[in-house]
């Protein structure tokens, strides 16, 4: 029985999760330098201890509204690439059995299905598990 752990965060009130193994760190480095002419979901660049981290507005990336930066905002930094996801707030760690990750019903939420790995029914709400590799995919121009 393999258990999975998720970093959870909120966008527009919805709870999203990312496999903890795919997350490098979570921080509040939000002094973002905008990059003109970049794709809309690229919020800009920040200095992550001497390296430049590309920050995605996860709202826009998921096809929702842009996220305002507030006191609660966080950067979820991924492992695979130097990319951070700007989220509204960070939730608790969630844990579940691998088998409890269910396939996402097609109309479960308003975001594109390709970004969703599955859903987990937590005690109080639904956790939408995101696919980091799809979020990082670059279609090119």
């Amino acid at each position, binding site marked *: 029985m393999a258990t999975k752990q998720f970093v959870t965060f909120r966008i527009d009130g919805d709870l999203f999760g990312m496999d903890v193994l795919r997350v490098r760190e979570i921080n509040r480095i939000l002094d973002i*330098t905008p*990059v003109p002419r970049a794709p809309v979901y690229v919020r800009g660049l920040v200095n992550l201890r001497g390296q*430049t981290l*590309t920050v995605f507005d996860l709202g826009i990336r998921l096809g929702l509204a842009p996220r305002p930066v507030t006191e609660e905002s966080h950067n979820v930094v991924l492992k695979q690439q130097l990319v951070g996801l700007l989220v509204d707030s960070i939730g608790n760690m969630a844990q579940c059995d691998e088998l409890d990750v269910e396939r996402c019903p097609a109309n479960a939420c308003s975001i594109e299905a390709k970004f969703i790995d599955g859903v987990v029914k937590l005690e109080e709400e639904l956790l939408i598990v995101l696919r980091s590799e799809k979020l990082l995919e*670059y279609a090119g121009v």
Partner: protein
Amino acid sequence: MGMASEIVVNEFVAEAREHLSNTEYDLLAMENCVECEFSEIVDRLFRSIHSIKGASGTFGFPAIMELSHAMENVLLLFRKGEATPDHENINDLLNGVDKLKCMIEDIYSSSSVDCRKELERLNAILPALGKSPMENSGNDSKAAPLDPSNSNGQPLPPSRAIKLVIKGRGNTFATFLPEAEELSSALSMQHFVFAIRTEKKTSVDFLAKLEEFGQCLATDSGAPDQADGTCCYLFSTVLEPDLAGAALDIPEEQIDHIAPEILQQALVAPPATPPPPEPSQPPRSCPQPPLGQPAPRKEKTTPPETIRVNVGLLDTLINLAGELVLGRNQLRQILDATVDTNPRLRTIIQNVNLVTSEMQAHILRMRMQPVKNIFSRMHRLVRDLCEQLIKEIELSTEGGEVELDKSILEGLIDPIVHILRNCVDHGIEPPAERIAAGKPAKGQIRLRASHEGGQVNIAVADDGRGMNTGAIVEKALAQGVLNLDEARRLSEGDKLGLIFLPGFSTAIQVTNVSGRGVGMDVVKTNVERFGGHVDIESVQGVGTTIRIRIPLTLAIISSLMVGAANQRFAIPQVNVKELVCIPVENRRRRIEQVGDAVVLRLREQLLPLVRLTDAVGLSPDFIHPETGERLPDRRQRIADRRVNLDGREDQTDRRHSPRGDVYVVVLRVVGNMFGLIVDELFDIEEIVVKPLSDHIRDCRCFAGSTILGDGRVAMILDAPGIASSAGLAFAEVKCEQLRRLADESGLRKSAAPSVSTLLFKGAPQELFALPLSTISRLEKITREAITRIGNQEFVTYCGKVLPLMRLDAFLPVSPLASTDEQLHLIIPKSAELAVGLLISQVIDVVELAVEPGRDADTPPCLLGSAVVEGRITMFVDMEEILRTIGKGPLWRQSSS
């Protein structure tokens, strides 16, 4: 040996690679080195191959060991002077190096590499040498104990002598009475014990020799059969049986190895006789021979000590150093305010400053590698090429110690290889031709690296036949990359530059070395990829020099910091030509609109201008002079002027600086220059370049990012990207410039034979010409901007409605293709009519002295036609067109 761990093997592979790359270089150097260098080179070669041999055997790679052993033997002959390196045997060694490299690259399959041919050839060099002189042997003695006095084996107290009778070769016997302690000590050290016979009586010299290599445990104690004058010694040494004889310089027959088991037995047996005093025994310890001097120092001859570091680790270190610099900068900013309260703080800050900067510089230097790392392989390349093409060439290299960033260095290999191939193939003539030309038969290629003002120069110079610019131009014409008229205007330098055009190749004969497809354009592209430039100089009959100039490092660049829209940007210094500040009072005079382009008059030139905010797509802002607020700037064009109600221009425009001055950074991009208008100018800083993620790379305007002293990220501007994304109208501006020059020269000498003429296209295959003097402006428009009312087309231009006309309405020519989205307007000079002529493409402005031919069939509105640059071109009669349309009602109306 069993399996060495993978880490160890990986390390070995890396080391062997390094050794082999040096080996190749040294082998080539050995071929034509001066005598004094020779032994040094041979020693180094020997050491490298020897190391590889030893380690490969130990780690269990017998094939590598065998081949390196064979090479080592040849090198040994060189070292001893028993053979001299020549073309042939160096070839064999080089081939051996190649095979070794091959084996090393896939080390676990090294045994499957077929190197029989190489081995055979190498071994053939040393017929006399035969097998290697020393094998790992352990052959035991034929001696047997004859009379080990034995009884009830109790170990003896050590300080007693035991009796040992040894039967040696040729039925000789010897009796020794060694001390048990000494014997057992020798055994515990696993020393070999020998019985040695010598011709002479006890010799002090011989005893001294024995002591040199070990210990004499006993001498023969006077057995009766010793009358023949021989003397026997019981000798213990660490030397193996086959070495002992060599060390003592006595024939093998006189030495008998005594198996340790025998000695062991003798030790446990009680002595037959009590140890008699040994009067004849020489003093046990001879005076120690003088110990050798410390090994002769060989300074300077060996490369400086190095260790290998994983590149990833290095990059991490570079990042961390960058971070430290940032921390320091932040600290400094905060402490600067309070430094006066504590004077000691100042010294500390200064120290930390210094150390941090220095550390960063050193860490960045760690990515640097000497160019000799790549120069060394060029010797081999040239040698092989010469062989292939039957030429005689000597390649000399200089400046191998010049260092470059690792990634640049790697990127340089292909360009240099290509240039060298060209040199060997086309540059250097065959020997006969050279002799006929009065040159030495052997050609020279010099490969030279040097520093020049923050850049590194790499020059490849040959003394070959040089380039025939005539042939180059001919070829360019034949390939259609150039037309006759353009060709006529080219300078000699320009002509040489043609070889950098894509697909250009001057090889008359296609050989398999070069001249097939890929040419110098690849060299140029590769070099430019990392910010370098390529130049060429050539004198026919004398030689060609190709010069590559490259920035020192990719990781750190000197950049001008500028600001726009409250953001800071870095512009690499290599792109910055100059900074121009246009005082507010000169703005009207210096900045103006030419067609679509805003231009700056800079000395004799017109420079297209682009606002940084426009280029990167930021909304421009300005600081309100009174409130200090940042407000959006709504004006569309930089040349637009704020006009007061009374119609006079507002001289207090403050858009670009507190005074209203305009800051222009003049940037250089391939073949062109343009001005970038920025809001603020800051210092020049050394910045560390960080790569961009894929998601950003496509924005074109940026070359990378960097982290500033305050910890914020700033984008590095990419000048060529900006020029292209701003759609700078270089052609139009050039046009305008030529027109003005023509105007001026027209004023100076009215009877100028040639006329500046605009060449343009209508329908795809139809070319037209108009004297520039009839044109007021050129504009670029999109098809979308055209509005159609009835049969008439209009565009909005400068706030007015401008009617359009098409040539096919006046002339028997084809209509414009309907697919072009971008069109151009020619606005003719006319006192009363405002009208635009719609065309598809502006081609060029040329000086023409042609009289267009006219005949009865020439339609009105056409002056005639002529062949311009090899193509039929129609000369439009603009006056006639204007006269024709001036008759229509609509035109007069709109122009009023």
